[in-house]
């Protein structure tokens, strides 16, 4: 029996290539996305996508024959069911269950793909249904996503949308094409190319025009909350990465409520004490400076690109080899502060804090990842030591009542006295001063300015003004009630577009840190005091047991104001009135890690060999730290290490030794007492040290350093973020490009004419070629002037032309036809006619067609297209 075909093999190939393959590609992506979204451990998207592709391809080919759906699908179902039962009966090992599950997944995906293939092959409107289905699924997935970012939204919808348009278009194209016709491939091909161009233009246009909107959407809906469920009109000071770690956000928005978690983020030891040497002087830990306020979205943002004297040091500790130091002294220079300065160390032990995050009191300039002592490795993921250039006068104590603590009271008084020496900001760099005192110019801010002037009417110096503002927030109203309250849920003004700052200052008087900081910022700026917002963690000294140790919980993520005092630099001022909840630790603080261990040897390089049995790791060393001395070589030196006692750690987790692979970049550190007495002299090189020390050298800590690829990408992103594209310039450039294009388009007919004309005027002795060139130029000229040949034969056309313009086209055409089709050559008389025809002809035509008409017609590209294109 021969089974008839429904589609020709050409159509089937087109369906496979143009429908099945793109669908499978999308499904690969969707499976990957869904697996990631549901956090399925074994992300089998590759396999699942292949199941789908197989089902789709088989079904497409199968149903191009005259098979009926219900019967064949039933047969397929029975076969799969039998196979499933058989597999269940055969496999008895403990993994049997898993295998049957795998098969189950296979069946589900295969059958779905089978049906889709049937739809593609037979049902005309199936592609529409299928696109709707995919979009609905995508909407469902997105609606469950906690973090909505513009990129995530685009990533979720763009492929499906593009696919939907594509598949409907292509399916219809394949359905309507005539596969028996010649040039079938080209027919499809040129439409595909056209479609791709149109789609690309559309997408590019959408992105260009709606980029701002995308960003606004992201701001409106984006953001990770500590309770990770709420979203919408609320904000948090931290965000959670995919791996569950936390970092500060590089922007904060004024919203109706603040979400706070209660988990421990990190622990830090800060050796900053008051002059008495006993009382710890806590400092706020800074992550970012917000110097820009987007009045539209009510968001404070980073502005690294335009910020004068950028003093933010933001290394990625996870990318720095263990015990190696990265410093950036430009930040010290950029603080422009020299008075009352000292260098302070801070050791930060990360719990939930993202491995790549770096937090330190301002102004930090150095980062050195350090090892976490073995007994604390369960508790702390990683650690680093930061060095800061800190002012004696800076302190977390500003708003908290230090009453009762004599040394603190004295300290407050002393530092304010010193700061009172600053009377004004004369002599400051103008750019710097203007930037940090910039205020939006509208009614809202004029009101704030008025309020600031009223509050600080009696204050003379900047610090007194600062204190006046603090006192204003702490003041009581006529009923003896606090004028301002702290609230995580201040609500929003009734008019959505109303300034939240004004609402906070003049009506509601409730808010969280960002409100107080924001209000303070603009009041300070209104008074001409350079200031900015800082974001990070507030430091609370709760511990009397371990002075200098501080615990940081999620709800300590904070924003506050920094004001600039020439000579003394940026000072932290926190005007947020106390939130009683934050003062108490949500759980008892634990014992802090021991002090940093004395490290004798740190080798940084590439793994060349790993012996998991003998626990030996061979490595090529590039950098070496030995007894705090840094050695480097141009070439690499081989070092054999004994890793039997070593803990191997990646960014966040401890991994077995077998995770080390050849070519990996690692840092090996040793605390071994053996090395303590083998000291290096000044003459020693890396080679001579390697000769001195035991071989293999025992190491205690191996840290795998991630390749820098991710970092590079980040840098790129930062670059893109820090250097915003100049849209105006872009617009002009694209306008100019479009104008040039249009101009060229308009000039194209003329250029072609110039070419033809020059060819026609040239006489190269070949009468036939001359006749052709003249004929071509003449007919192009006539056509461009709007006298197209249409359905006429050449002679008829020529006669008509002659009638209209009084030319002698007809005799020429007769000769041209002879030259073209006859076997005999032209007579001298005919050649003469050819030679004299052209110039007279053009002159005659020009005489009859006014210049203006000719000019207009020559701009008409359609005539040119008509001339060159085949009639339909």
């Amino acid at each position: 029996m021969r089974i008839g075909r429904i589609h020709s093999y050409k159509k089937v190939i087109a369906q496979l290539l143009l429908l099945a393959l793109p669908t499978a590609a999308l499904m690969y992506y969707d499976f990957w996305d869904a697996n990631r979204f549901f956090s399925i451990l074994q992300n089998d998207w590759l396999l699942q996508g292949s199941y789908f592709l197989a089902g789709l391809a088989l079904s497409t080919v199968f149903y191009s024959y005259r098979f009926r759906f219900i019967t064949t699908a039933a047969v397929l179902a029975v076969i799969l069911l039998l196979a499933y039962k058989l597999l269940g009966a055969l496999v008895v090992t403990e993994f049997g269950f898993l295998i049957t599950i795998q098969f189950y997944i296979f069946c589900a995906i295969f059958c779905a793909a089978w049906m889709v293939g049937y739809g593609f092959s037979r049902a005309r409107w199936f592609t529409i249904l299928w696109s709707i289905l995919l979009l609905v699924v995508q909407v469902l997935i997105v609606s469950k996503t906690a973090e909505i970012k513009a990129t995530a939204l685009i990533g979720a919808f763009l492929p499906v949308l593009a696919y939907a348009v594509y598949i409907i278009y292509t399916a219809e194209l394949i359905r309507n094409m005539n596969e028996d016709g010649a040039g079938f491939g080209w027919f499809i091909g040129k439409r595909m190319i056209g479609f791709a161009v149109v789609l690309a233009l559309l997408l590019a246009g959408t992105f260009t025009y709606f980029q701002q909107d995308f960003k606004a959407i992201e701001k409106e809906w984006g953001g990770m909350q500590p309770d990770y469920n709420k979203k919408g009109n609320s904000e948090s000071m931290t965000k959670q990465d995919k791996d569950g770690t936390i970092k500060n956000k590089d922007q904060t928005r004024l919203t109706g409520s603040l979400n706070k978690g209660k988990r421990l983020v990190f622990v830090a030891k800060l050796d900053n004490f008051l002059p008495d040497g006993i009382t710890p002087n806590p400092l706020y830990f800074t992550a970012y400076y917000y110097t820009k306020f987007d009045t539209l979205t009510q968001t404070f943002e980073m502005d690294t690109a335009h910020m004068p004297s950028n003093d933010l040091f933001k290394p990625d500790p996870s990318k720095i080899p263990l015990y190696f130091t990265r410093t950036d002294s430009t930040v010290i220079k950029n603080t422009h502060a020299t008075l009352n300065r000292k260098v302070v160390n801070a050791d930060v032990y990360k719990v939930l804090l993202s491995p790549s995050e770096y937090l330190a009191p301002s102004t930090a300039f150095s980062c050195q990842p350090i090892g976490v002592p073995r007994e604390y490795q369960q508790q702390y993921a990683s650690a680093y030591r930061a060095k800061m250039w800190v002012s004696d006068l800076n302190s977390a104590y500003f708003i908290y009542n230090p009453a009762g603590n004599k040394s603190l009271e004295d300290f407050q008084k002393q530092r304010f006295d010193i700061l009172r020496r600053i009377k004004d900001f004369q002599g400051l760099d103008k750019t710097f001063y203007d930037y940090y005192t910039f205020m939006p110019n509208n009614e809202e801010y004029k009101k704030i300015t008025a309020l600031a002037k009223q509050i600080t009417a009696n204050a003379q110096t900047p610090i007194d003004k600062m204190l006046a503002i603090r006192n204003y927030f702490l003041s009581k109203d006529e009923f003896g009630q606090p004028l301002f309250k702290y609230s995580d849920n201040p609500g929003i003004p009734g008019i959505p577009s109303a300034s939240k700052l004004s609402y906070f200052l003049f009506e509601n008087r409730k808010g969280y840190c960002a409100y107080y900081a924001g209000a303070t910022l603009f009041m300070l700026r209104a008074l001409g005091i350079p200031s900015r917002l800082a974001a990070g963690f507030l430091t609370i000294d709760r511990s009397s047991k371990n002075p200098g140790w501080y615990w940081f919980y999620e709800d300590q993520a904070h924003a506050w104001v920094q004001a600039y005092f020439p000579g003394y630099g940026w000072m932290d001022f926190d005007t947020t009135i106390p939130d009683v909840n934050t003062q108490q630790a949500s759980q008892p603080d634990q014992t802090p890690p021991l002090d940093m261990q004395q490290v004798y040897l740190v080798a940084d390089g590439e793994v060349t060999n790993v012996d998991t049995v003998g626990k030996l790791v061979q490595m090529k060393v590039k950098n070496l730290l030995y007894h705090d001395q840094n050695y480097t070589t141009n070439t690499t030196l081989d070092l054999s290490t004994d890793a039997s006692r070593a803990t191997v750690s990646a960014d966040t987790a401890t991994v077995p030794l077998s995770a080390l692979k050849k070519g990996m970049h690692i840092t090996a550190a040793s605390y071994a007492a053996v090395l303590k007495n083998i000291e290096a002299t000044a003459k020693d090189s890396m080679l001579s040290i390697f000769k001195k020390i035991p071989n293999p050298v025992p190491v205690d800590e191996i840290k795998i350093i991630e390749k820098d690829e991710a970092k590079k990408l980040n840098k790129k992103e930062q670059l893109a973020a820090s250097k915003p594209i100049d849209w105006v310039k872009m617009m002009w450039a694209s306008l100019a490009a479009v104008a040039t294009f249009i101009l060229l388009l308009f000039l194209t007919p003329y250029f072609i004419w110039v070419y033809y004309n020059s060819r026609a005027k040239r006489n190269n002795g070949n009468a036939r070629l001359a006749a052709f060139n003249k004929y071509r130029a003449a007919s192009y000229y006539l056509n461009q002037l709007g006298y197209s040949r249409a359905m006429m034969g050449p002679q008829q056309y020529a006669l008509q032309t002659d009638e209209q313009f009084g030319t002698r086209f007809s005799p020429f055409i007769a000769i041209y036809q002879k030259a073209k089709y006859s076997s005999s050559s032209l007579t001298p008389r005919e050649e003469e006619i050819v030679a004299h025809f052209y110039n007279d002809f053009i002159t005659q035509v020009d005489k009859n067609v006014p210049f203006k008409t000719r000019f207009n017609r020559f701009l008409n590209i359609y005539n040119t297209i008509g001339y060159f294109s085949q009639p339909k």
Partner: protein
Amino acid sequence: MEAIATEMNIQMEQALENIQKLTDNIETVIRGKRTQIQFILTALLAKGHILIEDNPGTGKTVMAKTLAKSISGLHHAGGADFKRIQFTPDLLPMDLIGSHIFDDIKKEFIFKKGPLFCNVLLADEINRASPKVQSALLECMAENQITMGDVTYPLERLFFTIATQNPVEMEGTYPLPAAQLDRFFLKIYFGYVDETTELNIYKDYLGIQSNLEHIQQVLSMDEILFLQDEAEKVFIHDEIIAAVRNIVTETRRHPDIVLGASTRSGITFLKCLKAFALVNGRTFVTEDDIQIITQAVLDHRLIYRNREAKQKALSNILEKEMSRLSKLKLEY
């Protein structure tokens, strides 16, 4: 080579002169119909036959008569042998080809030749006759001979049929099947003359009649046969042949055409092109020739999907091919 080419040219010149004479002669009677005259001469020189479709009274018969009278024949002094048959539904094949009649004296059947044994035959209103008669005529046209029993009678060396038919929409007609229409090289529409010419015709009504009476015999039968031979010598460029091939094959592909042109049609097409070029005084075929005669050569051989397609399909194909030819840059 050179000498032969020159001689051929001289003969051509003679031929062109003769054609000009014939055309001018006919035009003295038939006015404002130069194209139609050229078509008819084309069919004559291509050794084919022509079908004229139009309403009664447009000058078809006069045309055929004039042509016949312009040729001096062997049979009698009145020019080439001209016969006219008015086709009617009750006409029988015998009425055309003749029949055997018993000769009392010789005591045997002798063949009495029918009107087909002539030089120029006007088959008037061919679509009024029954299909049997139509096919008898068309067979003769194809074979150029008549077979009665076991005797074959050849037709005249010059045998040219001008058939006319009323538009098929008119009542009482038997439309000719496509296979039979194929026998006619060209099918043309006579059409009404333009208004000025019409006025002149009215004015000269009597004059025309007398013109027909006094028409000169400008060419001999031999000269016509010579012209037919000359027509075959007309040069046809490979690109023109390719264009004909393209047009013919395109009719088979065109979605609006149910039955396309056959290979035989293509050959007929080429013959007509050559003859038409000669009629136009050229020794080579040009794209103009294709432009002008394609409709006449192919239209009646095609079966269209619908009336609308009839108006467009062929001209579409032609337009495409003409566009290609007009831009063609040959190797010089």
